[in-house]
């Protein structure tokens, strides 16, 4: 067997502390939640914790309410990711141009991203508020609406409105990722296409869009993962309401675990969400990598 060198021993010693912390705060909860997902754990009956195997998973997957929340999660994520892609692309294209004030605009753009999620949630709660909200104020003053509207109380509008708050926070990061991709396109390519006879819009479709594909992949992947698992805004703005209109999977996990205190089912749902996210990401990477 090969002898362990001094460097390797030193590296192991230096990493040991970090690895121990990571094991305690990451690996342990992950494995422990997998463990409890196999038991009927309910804090209202803390002394009885029978092993139920995959029963929790079967119960979740056969529940129509769960599938309802899966549908709402998918709708929310699709809305959010599509809008983020379009808006971030436009912002990145704008910031790729040279104009006075570009640096200041870039800095301002980062503000939503820098705001903590909870602050963002509370801010949008104020904006959407039916009594003193800025949205009602603006629309009333501009004459678009005749009377104050209870925005988040309309079940048809709830998901798009929450998606809007999510998009507002996520666009800056997506725009920066796309801007970096734009900056990496060699100027000669545009020169070559212009000389080849392509007007500006053809150059955009022949060069810019194909070159943005890796950026699109990254943004779609990251934002889809964020949207599918998003919880903060649902908690702060609607608590799954009105009438379950914003009852998404992340919210359902919270309710099941911390309100119903049914840790076994909550853990099983978390695992289902994690595996679904993993599969979705894998499919996205496979699908989009083929077009790169």
């Amino acid at each position, binding site marked *: 067997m090969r002898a362990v060198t001094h460097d390797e021993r030193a590296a192991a010693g230096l990493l040991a502390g970090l690895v121990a912390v990571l094991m305690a705060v990451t690996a342990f909860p992950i494995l422990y939640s997998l463990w409890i997902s196999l038991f009927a754990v309910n804090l209202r009956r803390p002394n009885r914790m029978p092993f139920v195997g995959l029963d929790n998973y079967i119960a979740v997957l056969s529940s129509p309410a769960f599938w309802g929340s899966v549908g709402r999660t998918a709708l929310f994520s699709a809305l959010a990711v599509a809008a983020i892609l379009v808006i971030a692309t436009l912002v990145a294209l704008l910031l790729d141009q040279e104009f006075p004030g570009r640096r200041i605009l870039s800095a301002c753009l980062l503000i939503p991203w820098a705001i903590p999620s909870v602050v963002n949630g509370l801010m949008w709660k104020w904006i959407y508020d039916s009594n003193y909200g800025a949205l009602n104020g603006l629309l009333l003053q501009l004459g678009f609406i005749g009377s104050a509207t209870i925005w988040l109380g309309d079940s048809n509008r709830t998901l798009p409105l929450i998606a809007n708050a999510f998009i507002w926070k996520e666009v800056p990061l997506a725009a920066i990722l796309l801007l970096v991709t734009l900056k990496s396109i060699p100027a000669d*390519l545009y020169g*070559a296409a*212009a*000389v*080849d*006879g392509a*007007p500006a819009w053809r150059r955009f479709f022949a060069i810019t869009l*194909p*070159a943005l594909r890796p950026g699109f992949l990254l943004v779609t992947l990251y934002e889809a993962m964020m949207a599918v698992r998003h919880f903060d805004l649902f908690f702060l703005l609607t608590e799954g309401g009105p009438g379950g209109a914003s009852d998404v999977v992340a919210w359902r996990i919270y309710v099941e675990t911390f309100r119903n205190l049914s840790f076994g089912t909550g853990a099983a749902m978390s695992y289902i969400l994690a595996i679904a996210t993993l599969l979705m990401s894998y499919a996205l990477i496979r699908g989009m990598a083929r077009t790169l």
Partner: protein
Amino acid sequence: MARIRFQSVTKRYANGATAVAGLDLDIADQEFLVLLGPSGCGKSTTLNMIAGLEEISEGALLFDDRTMNNVPAHRRDVAMVFQSYALYPHKSVFENIAFGLRMRRVPEPELRRRVMDAAAKLEIAHLLERRPSQLSGGQRQRVALGRAMVREPSVFLMDEPLSNLDASLRISMRAQIRHLHAQMHSTFVYVTHDQAEALTLADRIVVMRDGTIQQIGSPDDIYERPANLFVASFLGSPAINLLEGALETIGGTLCFRRGALTVPLPACFRGDAREVVLGLRPEDVGPATSEAAQIHGVVDTAMPAGSDQFLGVAVEGAMLFLRVPKDVRVREGEPIGFGLTESRLHLFDRTTGRSLRRAA
């Protein structure tokens, strides 16, 4: 058909830097013109102005009799090969070559025929399905040439197209570019900082420096009759030897004097300067004979270079580099004498740098 004319063209950037100043240049139809100069001399800017990739700040650019200043690149009948090749990374080789034809709505059968023709000529027909990232540097270079060729443009622009290739490939591509020019009946404008490329390819060379033209002429003119010190020292490898000295008339003959060295000068030089620089190309020396002007010095270094050898000879406090046949026996530290070919001497005004050769 395209004759290209620059009339007092200046290119100034937003930061105030002037890339090209008051350029006057007339490029004949179907000529092969090379813009030669060190980096930053304005040669690529000049090319980009022809292509329409740089706006013209002042003056006029004409193709035949049409002013092109405000004609966008995609409406000019030019094709260009970039130093970086600028192949579209997401398109196959076929689509790279075909792109310009698609933009001009060339019917599909003709488009295929022209792409296949160009690919066959450039020996890249087997690569048509590949992406640029799957090609070697030489192959990419040929695809870039193909993309420009199929367009059959009236103006063909090349911006240092060979500079990323290795030496042997560069020489064979030079020959290919010459052939291309012979076949295409287009006006070629070629930018390079490589004097060998310029001398082998050009009908005429324009030597540029700091955004201005230093000399325009045939390769022979530029090499044999450089207009100033810059042109003389930019061309030639190893570089021309430059000896500072003074002009004197001795016995009715104009002579170059430096210390004990006296070189009688041919009648083709004007004597209207005192402080001068004598230019002597390393290869322009012969055996010491009684008829020729002679230089005597001491061999400092002798370096064999294949068919020739290079000698460093100390003459009057200066070091001359000379190229002599391999069979000349020399030893370092020994005195040596050489004959000069009078007709191949160069003489410049030391103050202005201008050649003192009389206009032919």
